[in-house]
């Protein structure tokens, strides 16, 4: 038993240093509020480690578009609740290189409102990064909706936009944008109570939003894995039974 405990501690230690761990690398930016949802990440990491083989690290990492470490993190997270300042040319160019190299950004609008100031700022800046590919609705048949859980719909702590938006690059999503305060469903106070009430669906909505968060992270780690034929046959049967759109169709 002692050996098992020691091995577990050793494994946890190695885990902390491991390059294939999931770090919640958060993008800091000028203006607006980059540090919204700062209580979500530890909870989400624990959930991921509990239900899956994802090696998620509780402590977030803070980065800017100029950080030398940016390219060490193939997935970064950006949250906000208000309009933010324009990125300069060097930052835009650096982010272009980041996405060219295979980086993915997950963006969450904490206002949970359609066309908020934050949302407008995001679209303004990403139009500079992807001038020919504006953020557009991610199809229901995308792998992101089947990467771990079967998802009937899209929500967060709010349900203002029933879809995710994104930009696809080389056959995989480079940008995933949620307008529904997706990561807000993970925030807890010190007593362990949920900070945000989920409206209008209550706790059922929270659960669906949590499942979507897991799917997005799983997608960022394994890409379109679930669209392989070996999975789609199996998933199709399940989805047929649930009257959901068959994965891979319409891609």
């Amino acid at each position: 038993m002692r050996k098992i405990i020691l091995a577990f501690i050793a494994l946890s230690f190695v885990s902390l240093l491991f390059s294939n761990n999931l770090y919640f690398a958060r993008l800091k930016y000028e203006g607006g509020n980059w540090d919204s949802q700062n209580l979500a990440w530890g909870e989400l990491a624990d959930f991921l480690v509990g239900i899956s083989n994802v090696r998620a690290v509780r402590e977030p990492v803070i980065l800017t578009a100029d950080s030398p470490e940016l390219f060490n993190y193939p997935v970064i997270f950006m949250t906000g609740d208000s309009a933010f300042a324009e990125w300069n040319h060097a930052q835009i160019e650096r982010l272009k290189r980041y996405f060219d190299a295979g980086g993915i950004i997950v963006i969450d609008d904490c206002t949970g409102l359609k066309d908020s100031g934050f949302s407008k700022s995001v679209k303004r800046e990403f139009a500079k990064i992807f001038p020919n590919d504006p953020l557009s609705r991610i199809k229901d048949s995308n792998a992101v909706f089947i990467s771990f859980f079967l998802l009937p719909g899209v929500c967060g702590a709010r349900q203002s936009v029933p879809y995710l938006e994104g930009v696809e690059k080389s056959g995989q999503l480079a940008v995933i944008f949620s307008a529904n305060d997706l990561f807000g469903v993970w925030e807890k106070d010190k007593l362990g109570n949920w900070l945000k009430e989920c409206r209008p669906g209550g706790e059922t909505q929270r659960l669906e939003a949590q499942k979507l968060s897991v799917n997005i992270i799983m997608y960022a780690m394994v890409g379109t894995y679930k669209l392989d034929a070996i999975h789609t046959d199996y998933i199709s049967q399940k989805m047929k039974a649930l009257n959901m759109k068959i994965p891979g169709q319409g891609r």
Partner: protein
Amino acid sequence: MNFEADFIALAGALLAALSAVYIYYSSDRKRAVLVPLRLFALLLLTFALFKPTLEHTQSFKKRTAVAVLADVSKSMGIKKPGDKAVLLKAAIKGKAAALAKTFDVSWYAFSGTAQKTSLEDLLKSDNFSGSSTDIAAALNSVRNELEKERAGAKKAIVIISDGNNNGLLDPAEAAKAAGIPVYTIGVGPEKKGPDVAVKSITAGELGFTGMQSTVTVNLSGTNAAGKTVRVTLKADGREAGQKEVVLKEDGLETAVKFNFTPKETGVVRYRAEAAPLKGEEDLFNNSAVCEARVIKEKVRILYFSGHPNYEYRFLRQVLKTNPNYEMVSFILLRGTTNVMAFSEDQLTLIPFPVTELFTRDLPQFDIVVMENFPYSQYMPADMLQGIARLVTERGGSLLMIGGDQSFGRGLYATTPLADLLPVSLDGPSEVYDTRPYKMVPEIHPLNSLSYSTESDALLWGGMAELNDINVAASSKPGAAVLGRHPFLKSKSGEFAPVLAAWQRGRGRVMACLSSSTWKWAMGTGAEASSGLYAKYWQGLFNWLSGVPDIKQVNISTDKKAYARNEPVRVAVSVFDEHYRYENSASVILSVGDPDGKKYRLDCLLAGNGIYECLVPGEIPGRYSFEASVYKQGKELGKDVCTAEISGSLSEAGDVYLNETLLSSIAGKSGGEYLNGSSERAFLLKIEPETEEVISRTRRTLWDSPFLLLLAALALCAEWYVRRTSGML
């Protein structure tokens, strides 16, 4: 005359003038003699301040140099439906000769190349036997001659031809690049009846046995818009498909696609034939050929990953974008210890079919990848025997990728895979180090990212750091270590191998002892993504799958098609059994020419396992090459390829005038196209002459002693007048 004065000098001059005026008005009339003298001296000095120079230019008018190129290829000798040679001579005799009155004309006869000649010889000659019409080559050589011999003069080139070019380069682009206006005069009968031409036939360079390939045929018609034509595709002489297509209006191409499934490996030769239209006379352009190499069906990869991770995501991207590969992957998204609060209905996880995969399905795959895969949680070690058999007996390959559950730490040291791997494993206590480091690549063909070792070193120097390694006990004798850790050492004392590979039985095995090579894809952000990660891993997977480009012996030519008499450079790359450059082999090249004659040539080492040989491409048609490589009497391998020598084949069939091409040449170079039979022929708008400056001399005046002496004399005279008038 020029002045080089500045503002200070100008101010000085103004001051001097004002002073003189002041003196004049403030003095009495007795000083009237003095003022001009002083003014004169001041004016001289002011004049000098403007730094005047005297320039003398000598020039004369130079006549524009015009090179007239007359096409003497075989197609110009065709007598029916119109004798082009007669038309050409008539055009030259009647009007071109008049050019010499206005221009400095030189005459050339061209087919493959351009040869200087005289007007008289051109008119006398009946030798229209040139085996090709290479307008671009002729233009380039004449342009170079003009640049050399007529520097400074205006230049123009006149081409008299039927425009039936069959050279390799685009003549219109060559004319544009020449920077000299090219005037084209077309001679030959215009196409009156209908004509269909197979403009091109293309197939993917690589096809797979048993898999459908698409062959695209582009057709165009003349006087045939709306007509239906039957197109037949033949593969190695056998009919592979037939389609009917309606032709678009003149000049527009119509594409026809054929699907063909090759059954055998090797080179397949496709030929597209368009059935003649009613009344069509020119049948020569009704067919075209191309070739494609066919290899065995797609390489099937079975990929096991121990957990969701970036190494998988990035490698998946590389493999999925390559049409040669088909990947089936299993990632352990959920571990045996994970607690699941959700019902199975809500999950997309599928059962991991261990037994079926390892006992039944393995032989269907060519490559097995085990990436940080903790086999011991899912199967007994004996089940891995199937992978060992796949490699050693069936010629499959194994790639093991590192991680904290891989190699020794993953308990593989006591499995059948331990013998297969090119590194010796430690037990469960094997060191797994997560400090960042830059892999030190060995000089090896698989590490080649560019065209030279020096350039490779630069590219590798720019690759990002890795940050994990399984420190194996040692690399095994005979294994090729591709990359090492810069400071960590194995138990054997060598720098720890990061990448190692070797051949085992009929198959190949590679160990990548790091699971952070995805960092090469992300890079450092300093430069744009170079794609080197994908290129490198493609190369490694190509080696694992044994596709043709990384056979021990590979033969290739520097181009696919050559002009007649152009030497064909044949290169043979040779690797030893460990895929290191083999520099001490004997390479013999068997050449088969289009006439069926066979002969042998020795290839010489050109560096880093490359042996070269030049074969003169004298006969139009297809040459075949077979390289046989030997070392110490033992055959290392053989490979074959072909090359096409273009030239005379189409000359005999080029009956009509190609006005489109001649117009394009003239248009792109700033010249003009005229039909040789028209009244306006040779009324070319060439500028007749240019003024050339032959000498320009400059003399400075301001520093002339005479000028200073004159000023001094004026001042002395003033002094003398003052003295004699008692004004001092």
